[in-house]
Structures are given as structure tokens and as C-alpha cells.
């Protein structure tokens, strides 16, 4: 009954074609959840192992990346529960500080941020963001997921995704403004888009 060793099951072929190409994406998402490379490695391994074992439940033609993100999130939650890791903020705190829409823009802050190279500071700021905010920002802003997809992956209502996302973005902007001020950058008189080179005050 056993198939010859050189014959690959169809499911292996489809798994390799549809699931494995998302390994980098799942790794980025795992890192956003854990902020720790060793933990992210473990989660990515377990995610793909679980995905492989339950590949028969994957609906052909549906979004494999979204499915993998959901598994990844579940693995993370299970591991966190097991390890009793602390999160920086509980959901109640998050919802209590989240606003309904985009916070009122602050022209002065935008003007400061327009004068710095955001990339290095952003990477650092993202690492400092609490997990619930970071995972929402990562899914929507980096992995280009819709609010609805992020809601399904994170297992929270769309309104919660929106409030975590907006709060996360605002926190990032606050951290970047602090970074810019620490670097001696002051408010210029005009704001447009972020510059590629920092401009320091005399």
C-alpha cells in the first residue's frame, strides 16, 4: 500500500507551493508578536508544522497567508499562556485609551518628523511597541492585510483592530518625535513629507 518513496503526495506539492513561500511573512509577524528572535524561530517552526499537519483542512483557493498568520497567532497565544509571559498592556487598558478615529494631527510633530530619516528610528520604535499594537501595525502596514483580515487573524473585533492600529501608529509617532528632539531636531516652519536626510538645528 505504501507509495514509492519517489512519489510525492499531492498535498506536499500544494503545501510547498502555497504555504512555504510565506515563510518570511510569517517570520516577520512572529517577530512582531514576540520581539525575540529565539521565540519567533520556535513559533515559526510550530506554525508550519501545525499548518502541514492540518493542510487537509485548508480550503483550496483561499488565502494561505492569512491562514498561516492565524495559526501563528494561536501558537503565540498558547505559548504565552504556557510560559505566563507578561504583556505590556492588557486589552482593557488598550481600549480605554484608544480613540474612535485618527487622533487630531499635531502640525508641530509632523513638521519635526518631516525632517528626519524615519527608517532606523522606526525599526527601533516598532520593537518598543507593546505586542497588541505592534501586531496590528505589522499586519496592516507591513503585511498589507485589511482590517477585516487582521480582525480574523487576531481574533478580535474590527473596532479593536482599528483602535489598536491607530493607537500604535500614534505611539510610534510620539516615539519618533522624542527621538528627533533627542537628536536636536527642532520644529521648522514648513511640513511636507519625511525627508531622507536628517536636518539638525544649529
Amino acid at each position, binding site marked *: 500500500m505504501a507509495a514509492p518513496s519517489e512519489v510525492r503526495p499531492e498535498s*506536499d506539492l500544494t503545501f510547498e507551493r502555497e504555504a512555504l513561500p510565506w515563510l518570511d511573512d*510569517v517570520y516577520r509577524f512572529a517577530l512582531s508578536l514576540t520581539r525575540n528572535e529565539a521565540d519567533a524561530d520556535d513559533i515559526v517552526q510550530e506554525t508550519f508544522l501545525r499548518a502541514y499537519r492540518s493542510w487537509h483542512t485548508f480550503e483550496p483557493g483561499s488565502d494561505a497567508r492569512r491562514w498561516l498568520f492565524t495559526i501563528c497567532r494561536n501558537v503565540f497565544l498558547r505559548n504565552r499562556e504556557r510560559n505566563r509571559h507578561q504583556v505590556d498592556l492588557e486589552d482593557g487598558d488598550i481600549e480605554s485609551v484608544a480613540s474612535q478615529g485618527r487622533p487630531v*494631527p499635531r502640525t508641530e510633530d509632523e513638521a519635526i518628523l518631516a525632517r528626519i530619516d524615519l*527608517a532606523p528610528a522606526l525599526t527601533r520604535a516598532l520593537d518598543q511597541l507593546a505586542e497588541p499594537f505592534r501586531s496590528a501595525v505589522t499586519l*496592516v502596514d507591513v503585511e498589507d492585510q485589511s482590517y477585516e483580515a487582521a480582525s480574523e487573524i487576531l481574533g478580535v473585533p474590527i473596532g479593536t483592530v482599528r483602535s489598536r492600529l*491607530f493607537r500604535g501608529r500614534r505611539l510610534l509617532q510620539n516615539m519618533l518625535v522624542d527621538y528627533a528632539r533627542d537628536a536636536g531636531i527642532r520644529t521648522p516652519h514648513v511640513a511636507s513629507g519625511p525627508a531622507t536626510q536628517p536636518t539638525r538645528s544649529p
Partner: protein
Amino acid sequence: MSDKQPPRPDASQPAAAKPKSGVDCATVLEQLWEYLDSELLPEHMQAMRTHLALCSRCYPHYDFEKAFLEAISACQCTRCAPDDVKCRVIDSLRRAGFSPTSSKSTG
């Protein structure tokens, strides 16, 4: 992305509190992120786009937030799983019965 990109308004024209678009500045500024995320209804997306194209007060905020969100994406998108992580994933799958095309199937 291009359908979200409104033309830059004529800066010589004074900013109106409610350009002929059906939405006012306060609404536009509050919903800027949802607009950039394409999460608004199509008719509201269009109203936002029209407003931004006409309003020299709101456009710089749009311009800034667009660049900010693009910077978040750009600073993370190049982050890849290290090769040893990819190898460990394939090894654990192999132990579970998976037979990849080659040992470097994930690049």
C-alpha cells in the same frame, strides 16, 4: 494606490473649511488613516479624494501620513527569516513526513 492619490491642491487658493466635496476638514483629518488604508466606502473614498485635491490645509497632513505609513512598510518589508530558521522549518516538516522538492525549497 494611485486612485487614492489626489492631485496636489492649488496653494494659491485659500483653504475652505468645506470644499465642494461633501466632507469637512475635521472629518477628513479624522479619517485620513482609514482613507490611506482604503477602508472607507467607495463614495466616501471619492469625497475624501476630492476634498484633499481642493484643500491646501488638509493635503500636507495627507502627504505626511502617507509618507509615514510607507516608511513603516519599507523598514520592515525587507526583514526575512534567517536561513537557519528556514532550514529548521524544513527539517521539522521532514520529520513530520514532508518531502520537499529540494533541500533549498524555501530559498
